[in-house]
């Protein structure tokens, strides 16, 4: 029993010595390490995770992150090629590719960030100033193509849009990002850094320009509002005109048809009378005249008749012919 206890105690002590002397160290998945001996780097960087050994007391381990890291730059006020002042906010992904060089040149992450500030900001400035604002804002000519397409379409013509926005672009935002990455990326390896990606995160007008843009937007909207109003009035006038025309057409057509019907009736009537009365016009005139006599004489009439007429001839003579 005593022997067993003794063995356990010895093992524990040895393990403790190994641990505390620093002969063993672990490298986690997220880290890489560089060994220095009295400050002088020894061997290659250790990038494999797990248990590792070093000489105790005389060697030091320096850990560096192995993961992809973020760099987020300050917003920069940069003029574009067409002299528009904008805030450009870039963000980048980087990692420590050569931890030994990293240790020697920038020492730590803070140092790395300050170098990245320098190279990415200057690359961004170079690229933005040599391109138009639309090239930084847009990624493709989608809008321009759509506008061309829309112009063929009656409904969407005259869509409200800033004229310069319709300029076709040859490079878009993603290409600018690639250019910045290329420009800054080839400077990074000297710091043991690999620049994986640079992106434009935010892009905004500076305050003064922003106000002007707001004013322009308001003007554009007013233009659109007026367009809708006048479209409404135009459409109204069109419908009113149509109403007038249809009204005239309906009434005049009805009049024409009615007159036609009446005329046909009149002609029929004329024919009927002519056919009938034509059989004996003299009798017709005799009879009709008599009818009118009856109608024409009333209690206000004064009749002056001579005895020459047939009716009174018997007053003059009693002869019958």
């Amino acid at each position, binding site marked *: 029993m005593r022997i067993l206890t003794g063995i356990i105690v010895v093992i524990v002590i040895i393990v403790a010595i190994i641990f505390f002397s620093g002969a063993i160290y672990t490298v986690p998945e997220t880290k890489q390490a560089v060994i220095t001996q009295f400050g002088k780097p020894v061997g290659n960087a250790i990038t494999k995770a797990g248990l590792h050994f070093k000489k105790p007391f005389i060697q030091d381990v320096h850990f560096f992150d192995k993961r992809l890291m973020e760099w987020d730059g300050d917003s920069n006020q940069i003029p574009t090629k067409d002299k528009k002042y904008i805030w450009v906010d870039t963000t980048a992904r980087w990692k420590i590719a050569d931890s030994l060089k990293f240790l020697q040149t920038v020492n730590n992450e803070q140092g790395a960030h300050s170098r990245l500030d320098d190279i990415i900001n200057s690359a961004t400035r170079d690229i933005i100033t040599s391109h138009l604002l639309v090239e930084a804002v847009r990624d493709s000519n989608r*809008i321009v193509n759509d506008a061309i397409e829309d112009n063929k379409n009656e409904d969407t013509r005259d869509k409200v849009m800033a004229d310069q926005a319709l300029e076709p672009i040859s490079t878009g935002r993603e290409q600018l990002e690639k250019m910045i990455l290329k420009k800054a990326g080839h400077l990074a390896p000297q710091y043991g850094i690999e620049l994986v990606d640079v992106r434009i995160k935010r892009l905004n007008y500076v305050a003064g320009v922003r106000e002007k843009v707001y004013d322009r937007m308001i003007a554009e909207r007013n233009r659109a509002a007026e367009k809708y109003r006048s479209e409404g009035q135009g459409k109204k006038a069109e419908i009113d005109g149509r109403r007038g025309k249809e009204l005239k057409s309906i009434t005049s057509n009805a009049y024409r048809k009615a007159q036609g019907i009446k005329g046909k009736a009149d002609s029929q009537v004329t024919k009927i009378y002519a056919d009938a009365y034509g059989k004996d016009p003299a009798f017709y005139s005799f009879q009709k005249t008599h009818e009118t006599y009856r109608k024409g004489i009333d209690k206000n009439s004064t009749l002056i008749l001579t005895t020459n007429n047939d009716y009174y001839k018997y007053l003059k003579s009693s002869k019958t012919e």
Partner: protein
Amino acid sequence: MDQRKPEDVIRELKEHFSSIAKYLPYIAAILIVVIAVVGMIYSIGPDEVGVVQRFGKYHEITSPGLHVKIPFGVDKVTPVKVQRIFKEEFGTRTVTAGIKTIYSKQSYQDESLMLTGDLNILDVRWIVQFRVIDPAKMLFATRSPIINLRNVAEIVMRRLVGDYTVDEVLTTKREEIDAQAQLYMQELLNKYNTGLKIVTVKLLDVNPPNKVKPAFNKVNEAKQEKEQAINQAWEAYNKVIPKASGEAERTLREAEGYSLDKVNRAKGDADRFMAVLEEYRKAPDVTRKRIYIETMSEIIPMAKQKYIIAPEQTSILPLLNIGQNVKGENK
């Protein structure tokens, strides 16, 4: 008992201690075992997996339940919630989620203001839902998956909005932008090895900047006005045209009525005449005379004054005071 000397007390304590000291190694051994056993057992929740690192090196992934590991810092277990869907908000923050979710009143214009393809400014708010599909990658490949996700979301959303017009982002192309954003965000996340998967991207409020809002509202009003003007015109049209059609129909029917009336009357007159004519022809002279005499006998009694004169007397006219008589009647 209270009269004991202090030396006695110390001696007694010493005796006690030596009897305990005998067991001290065993107590220590038991303690170590207990600590080891406690450190060996760990549990993983139902919505998690455990990522096990042995001496810092990635070892395995364990599923929900009770598991055993090597204690004393050899195995390190990090639970990762792989089932849970996380949400990140942009341009807005949820204060308390509930039946009536409260959003922060504060505005996050830095995040939400962006340029559209027609060089205007819009206030765009959106959310991204995501989950962890590769826990090992999520833990080891990037330093901060959340910062990466937020950056990627802003990069992609701004690039997309930069490719659409104000009107499209406000209205017609919202769903298209949602879908495209999800696609491109995932592409970038994969490139960065984040081990995250975008579940959905949704545009929330998209507004023009406050200063421009009234102008946008004016456009909407103008649209309404346009509709109103058109409706009014149609209203006037509908008021008049059907009525006119009805009236036209009436005119036609009246003409037809007139026609029927006229023709029937004519036919009647003709029939009557023909009937009379037929009889007349049988005895023309007598009939003529009869008609003449009948007429005379009818009209003569009707007249107020009758003068029967011989044709030789031609100067009678001045004697007649025709007008006076008539006037007298009128009184």
